[in-house]
């Protein structure tokens, strides 16, 4: 089974994603903060990571930078309700796919379809 980490301080966003992704055969792990996400990535291997941008203490892009610095090359999607050009530019810089929060279908499509083949 494909394994995804959902990082969002909003539990209902996590609920929504969990429902949507588990129906597409993803095993879903959740983290409610950047620190929690980094800790989970230290002990688990994921096929994809979905990051919220605005979270207390650490933003999604900061989490992504840290993961890349730690040598973790897992595909990351930045799933944010507030994507302005500055955030999108930063996301590109770190190699993230940025998707607005009201486009759940795009998120599902953007996740790797057959991670076992890669």
């Amino acid at each position, binding site marked *: 089974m494909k394994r995804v980490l959902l990082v969002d301080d*909003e*539990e*209902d*966003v996590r*609920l*929504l994603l969990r*429902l*949507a992704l588990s*129906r597409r055969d993803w095993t879903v792990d959740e983290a*409610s*903060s950047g620190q*929690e996400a980094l800790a989970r990535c230290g002990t688990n291997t994921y096929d994809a990571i979905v990051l919220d*941008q*605005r*979270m*207390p*203490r*650490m*933003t999604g892009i900061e989490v992504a930078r840290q993961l890349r610095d730690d040598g973790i090359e897992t595909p990351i999607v930045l799933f944010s*309700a*507030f994507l302005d050009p500055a955030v999108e530019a930063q996301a590109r810089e770190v190699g993230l796919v940025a998707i*607005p*929060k*009201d486009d*759940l279908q795009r998120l599902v499509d953007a996740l790797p379809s057959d991670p076992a083949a890669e």
Partner: protein
Amino acid sequence: MSDDVRADSGGGGSQDSGHDAAARGDERTVTRQLSQALDALADVQLELDREHLRRVQTEALLDRLFGSLSDAVLVVDPHGAVTRANAAATQLLGRTMEELLGADAATLYRDRVPATPWGLMEAAPDGQLSLETAVARPDGRGRQVSLSCAIVRDADGKVHGAIHAARDLSQVHRLLREVEAAESRWRLLAHVGAQLADALDPRHALDGIVERLEKDTGCSLAVVLSDEGVIRRVSMSPGAPDGDLLVGLQHTAPPPGTALSRVITGGQTVHAPTVERGFPLIGPGWEQVRSAAVLPLHTETGTVGALVVVSTEPGSVDESTVGLMEEVAARLALSVSNALLRDRLVEHRAREEAARYRNEILAAISHDMKTPLSVLVGLVDTLEGFGESHDPAELQQMRLGLGRQVGRLRRLVVQFLDYIRLEAGLDLSVSPVPTDVRAIVAAVTDSTSASRRVEVDVPDDLPPVLADESRLDLALGNLVSNALKYAPADAPVTITAREAGRNVELSVIDRGPGIPPADQAKLFDKFTRSPDTTGVEGTGLGLYMTRQIMRSQGGDVRVASRPGEGSRFTLVLPRATGEVG
């Protein structure tokens, strides 16, 4: 004198007449003696002529000398009558030479002056006296003089009279007065300049300036500041007549047809050294004013007001006063115009700041609403996709999630609409009714979080409060949402309630980082956010709106917090006297 000399010579000739033998010789002797006597007489006559000539010459010389003096010189006889005067004396004393000669010198001075030699000797042992006095002229124009008097004696010390030399001081005095006036003018202007420069806002220095000007000039003053022809501000000196008149004109245009109106709209100085009753200076009133000037305060962009100078004495506001006031007006105008420029700059910045603030608020509000909307849309879509195959546990989760997001969205909309009302200057239309606090607490905890622990400690017998339900729900929701946002995920948030006299206190307690005392006071200001919350969603409106909402329904909100220990936010609500409605 010449008769005496002849008698002596004749006497000398008769002494030798008795000797016959030597008669011819005697005759010759007599002839010789006579001749000698005649010669001597001629010499005497010659001497006398020379003496006369000398005397005439001396007189002429004296006349020329006296005449050439710019000081007035009088020679008086022992009785104090004028025996000689020069041209300067006739001018200074305002009399002809004929009027002066023989006049009693004492009557020529305004003060009692020892005019006779005896008087002089009494006043000064050495017979010399210098003093300042004024001359008494027939035309009444007294002139200040410096007078030197001295007794005149002949070679034997016999007193012949006295001499008076008077120097006209009015020129000197005038110069002195001008120098003094120039100096006091300079001091006054320097004072005005310093007052204007020292004040944070020069307009606040105006009262002090007019008071000082009144003290120095003896005229009353008013500074009228206008904006687009309307009087905005009036500063009057304490002695100004009928002060209410000008003050009453604030926020109106000066009455048309008055000097003030002409100056403010036309920018020309009006000067009336003598004011007739009924002169339209400011408007009706100010009947006591007998002398006035109104000067414009000119700036590059136009007239920003007027300087009004008045006096109850005709002629008091003279050319020199107006000249001084022109200088004052120039300084006032410059300072006021600078202050107006600063005002405009501040206004401009405030407008920019307000626009920037509005944009930020709108961006933050739109962002805050986007999240629950996105989740709602996503949940509804997912629900539709479920079809027949559904897990009851998942459905329940979704139902709760939908409820939470709807509650959240509802609070955001209530807060947004209240914010718009406040910004528009409207009251929040609250309708407090007796309300059960436990119901509100339950609604809030239901709609906040499934995973986070919110402990509730509300006594069952808590009396109802007077509150607007949707607003109390919003206020408590804001506090709980803040507590969950800032406190660590594993630390519980507690809601407690208790009676406190005529109030009920509803507290939300977190074990978060706490708030430094310095920041606590600003917490309820518009758009304040904790500095270490970068990335946390929120408009910064929450606590500000909570306070507005609580106060609008007769309650309040306060905070107690210690850095490192956590915070307690308390909603204070009046107890309802009746039953829950």
